[in-house]
């Protein structure tokens, strides 16, 4: 709760600072504020009695603190990476406060105990992101992506509300605990409830970008400014998938059998579609967009397994994926900004000769996403597969492994371009100190969380 209040305060501060023209102070204050938030998470961890709820709307437990920490750390990296982007634009506080408010939505998504709060979180997170997607006002692609995202997002919100209405109709409550109690006392499920559940499931699948509700993802990711894409594929994705998990864990896990097959099919389809389509792409931004669809498929497996170890694996997966995502999108952004915003595969040719730090970190990030040991991404996949195998989903793990093999192919296309391509007539890059630090630091995180997975997994003790 303290985290949420602090963050809201930070958002208000950066909005007001803009009005009173304290722009120079905004960035340092945000960085310090986020570091302070991490400190708060550290202090709160384990000390919360998980029965304390805030007006039956939110419950701060280790699940929420663990995800809040990952989100905060990712946001910190994201601000460090995007400083120069915002300083190019005219009014940075608009963006900064938008992002901070989006982040408050993300925080709500990790700690809600009531469908109302879930809906609020989704909207508070989504609305600023619609705006951010369109933040390059003169760019048609950016505008198109923003509009498309908004249109489809509104549609998904409507579906979500529709589903909520059905569930309320069946159970008479928005409270997740009451819904779970209702389910455990009901010998026969009413069709009303079932339809509501399916509609909510569809809406959540839309938010995490799972097939067949993934169509917005590649278009929006590609159209949005790269920095915003980074925000979407790390923070938004983490918050959405955590919310998905929390919703089903807290209220629907009692009727797991009713929807298990659907999630199974959805996960399989998402992994296959995301990874297979990515194989044919020649634009790195689009490759990463499809790959993020594929990763959503891997994360869905944890919702299928739905136990404590799955929660740990999901936390670890999001942390590993966010770290790799920040690194990959930062390099993508740097390459793109020297190339009129275009990021075809051949813009990466011979990057290792032009800037070894960028190429090195990008390689680590891609290898981690591909799941090459001993990097974090390998263990992330490994833990999810272990939990799935232990619960008997062997067929799904086979599909998952095959699709990650396809993943290796397109990740290596980029790596091969960076190491063996001829860098003729391509610019060399000079990194700002903050970017250099960030690249090296994230690379270290990718290695270290891989070597010592328990430091992340241990955060989560439900």
């Amino acid at each position, binding site marked *: 709760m303290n985290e949420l209040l602090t963050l809201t305060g930070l958002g208000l501060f950066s909005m007001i600072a803009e009005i009173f023209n304290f722009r120079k102070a905004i960035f340092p204050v945000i960085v310090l504020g986020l570091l302070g938030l991490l400190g708060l998470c550290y202090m709160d961890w384990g000390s919360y009695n998980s029965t304390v709820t805030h007006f039956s709307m939110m419950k701060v437990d280790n699940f929420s603190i663990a995800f809040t920490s990952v989100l905060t750390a990712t946001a910190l990296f994201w601000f460090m990476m995007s400083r120069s982007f915002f300083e190019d634009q005219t009014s940075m506080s608009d963006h900064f406060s938008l992002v901070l408010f989006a982040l408050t939505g993300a925080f709500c998504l990790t700690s809600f105990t009531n469908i109302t709060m879930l809906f609020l979180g989704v909207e508070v997170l989504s609305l600023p992101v619609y705006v951010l997607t369109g933040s390059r006002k003169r760019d048609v692609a950016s505008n198109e992506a923003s509009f498309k995202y908004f249109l489809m997002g509104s549609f*998904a919100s409507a579906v979500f509300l529709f589903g909520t209405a059905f569930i309320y109709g069946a159970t008479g409550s928005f409270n997740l605990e009451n819904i779970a109690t209702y389910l455990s006392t009901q010998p026969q499920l009413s069709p009303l409830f079932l339809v509501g559940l399916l509609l909510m499931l*569809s809406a959540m699948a839309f938010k995490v970008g799972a097939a067949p509700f993934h169509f917005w993802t590649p278009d929006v990711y590609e159209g949005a400014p790269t920095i915003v894409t980074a925000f979407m594929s790390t923070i938004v994705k983490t918050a959405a998938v955590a919310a998905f998990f929390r919703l089903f864990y807290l209220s629907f896990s009692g009727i797991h059998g009713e929807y298990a097959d659907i999630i199974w099919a959805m996960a399989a389809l998402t992994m296959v579609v995301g990874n297979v389509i990515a194989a044919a792409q020649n634009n790195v931004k689009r490759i990463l967009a499809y790959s993020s669809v594929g990763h959503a498929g891997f994360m869905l497996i944890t919702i299928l397994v739905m136990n404590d170890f799955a929660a740990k694996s999901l936390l670890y997966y999001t942390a590993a994926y966010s770290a790799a995502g920040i690194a990959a999108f930062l390099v993508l952004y740097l390459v793109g900004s020297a190339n009129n915003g275009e990021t075809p595969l051949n813009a990466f040719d011979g990057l290792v000769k032009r800037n070894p730090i960028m190429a090195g970190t990008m390689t680590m990030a891609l290898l981690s996403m591909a799941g090459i040991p001993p990097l974090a991404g390998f263990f992330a996949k490994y833990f999810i597969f272990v939990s799935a195998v232990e619960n008997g989903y062997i067929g799904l793990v086979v599909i998952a492994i095959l699709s990650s093999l396809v993943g290796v192919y397109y990740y290596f296309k980029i790596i091969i371009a960076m190491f063996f391509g001829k860098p003729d007539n391509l610019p060399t890059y000079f990194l700002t100190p903050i970017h250099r630090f960030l690249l090296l630091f994230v690379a270290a995180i990718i290695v270290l969380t891989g070597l010592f997975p328990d430091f992340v997994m241990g955060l989560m003790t439900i």
Partner: protein
Amino acid sequence: MEQLVKFIPLFPLIGFAIIGLANRRLSKGVTGVLATGSVLASFAIAVIIFMNRLGGDGQAVTVTLFDWITAGNFSAKFSFLVDNLSTMFLLVITGVGTLIHLYSIGYMHDDDGFRRFMSYLNLFIFFMLLLVLGDNYLVMFIGWEGVGLCSYLLIGFWFKNIDYSSAAKKAFVMNRIGDLGLLLGVLLIFTATGSVTYDSVFAQAANITIPVVTTATILLFIGAMGKSAQIPLYTWLPDAMAGPTPVSALIHAATMVTAGVYMVARSSVLYMMAPISMDFVAWTGVITALFAASIGFAQTDIKKVLAYSTVSQLGFMFAALGVGAFTAGVFHVVTHAFFKALLFLGAGSVIHAMHHEQDIRNMGGLAKKLPITHATFLLGFLAIIGFPFFSGFYSKDEIIIQALAHKPIIGYLLIFGALMTAFYMSRLYFLTFMGKFRGTEEQQHHLHESPLSMTVPLMVLAVLSVAGGYLLQGYMEHNLTLGAAVTASTEIEEHTLHGLHNVMWGVTAAAIVMAVIAYVLYVVKGQRPSSDADMKGLEKTIYNKYYVDELYESLITKPLNSISSFLSNWIDINVIDRLVNGTGGGINALSGQLRLTQSGNTGFYIVAMVLGMALLVAITVFM
């Protein structure tokens, strides 16, 4: 106090990191002090822990650094186990390690790769400490692989010489064969007990069936065969002498090659359950002991003689383990570390003085020119042949007595091995230090005693070689209770042991007679080994190590090479490549089709979503 153990592996790791990263920015002096100092600091802590435990109750203590991996029902902690066995190894590794680091400062001083060398040595110490400290098979395995890596790097230290780098590769490959056995053994133990931590494995040992425990222990022992150079995986160790002499002393005599002994002793609970494995260990040990000793008779390279002697002594240790005398085996590890390190460093001092001459046919009479080297070498030599009251006397006697009591045939064969040792070591000693100098004029002119940094370690090791056995005898007997649960039932009557002690005096006397025979042959009669061209018959066969390398070459390497060339030239191109390229092409084609769904048309997307939802509802309701 045991908590301090965390720092023991830390210092050498820091030393490695600083020297490895700073490299040329550090002067050679600073590098030497840093490398030696880091191991010395670890040694100091090891001594503190040892003294503290001596006064305490001697219970094993587990020190956990952090939870390493937890996945499903598998969990491994990065923890250290401090008990009397690991403390003993700690003392030997850091103690002998410090001396050899000090020696290396003098020995390697003029080498271009001095800093690289010192950093590798520190890294080696780090991994060796992990190996003996881990409280589970997984941490031990990291150490096990790490020392293998360092051994490879250091054997091929002068990598510009093709022969040396092939020797390094050979060591690496042979160790891999063993490591596979070890890994399978650990996996089997894990599937049988659900754990890799020593405590819980041994606690559940009674629930494992005998065939499984036998297989597991034999697999583990295959790992030991590779690392500790037992038949048939021993051929890498003599070749490993390509590395600088301090490496031979530290890694290929005192510490790494005894890792197998440590591992078997650590798993003594499992071995005691599997009599077949015990016999296997004992017979492998004794056959290796005799076989390697016989090769020692005809070698002319001073380091090769010592290398075969090491293989042979390792055989003694395994024979001890195999008859259930785990304590005696570990005792011999310790005394052997003292005197074999001393002998190797002495040999290094000789090689240093002779300007990289290693052939004993060109030595002789060095006693006068190299007084300190000679005196210390003599003490080491007396220790290895088991001269009364020297360190080897206690440990070797203990091994042979235990063998005679438990498996007499092994005992008799070991006595024979001890006599062979006495002879070929005497031959080495007399040919090197006695008689007339046989080298070139120029070598004779340049003969000089080594600097202090090299002779001080020699002197310290000489003291340990003389007194180490006597000092540690009581400690070993009372504080190392390995495999005790089972030995108690086969306790030997006191008077039988007493009788066996008397037999040992006879054996010792016989060993001294062997030394005298060697004296007569090589000093009084002035015999010297034939030159390569003059060798005939048995001598030539032995000189060429029974052609075992050639045998392996034609039995294993050549058939493997032809199979792999078939696989690579035909199977790979016509089957694998087509399969792989076909799959890739298929995926690409599929991808090309699938991407068409991504039309960019928002209306289509929303229709797809609605259809998707309808499908979900339909599936749930109708199925």
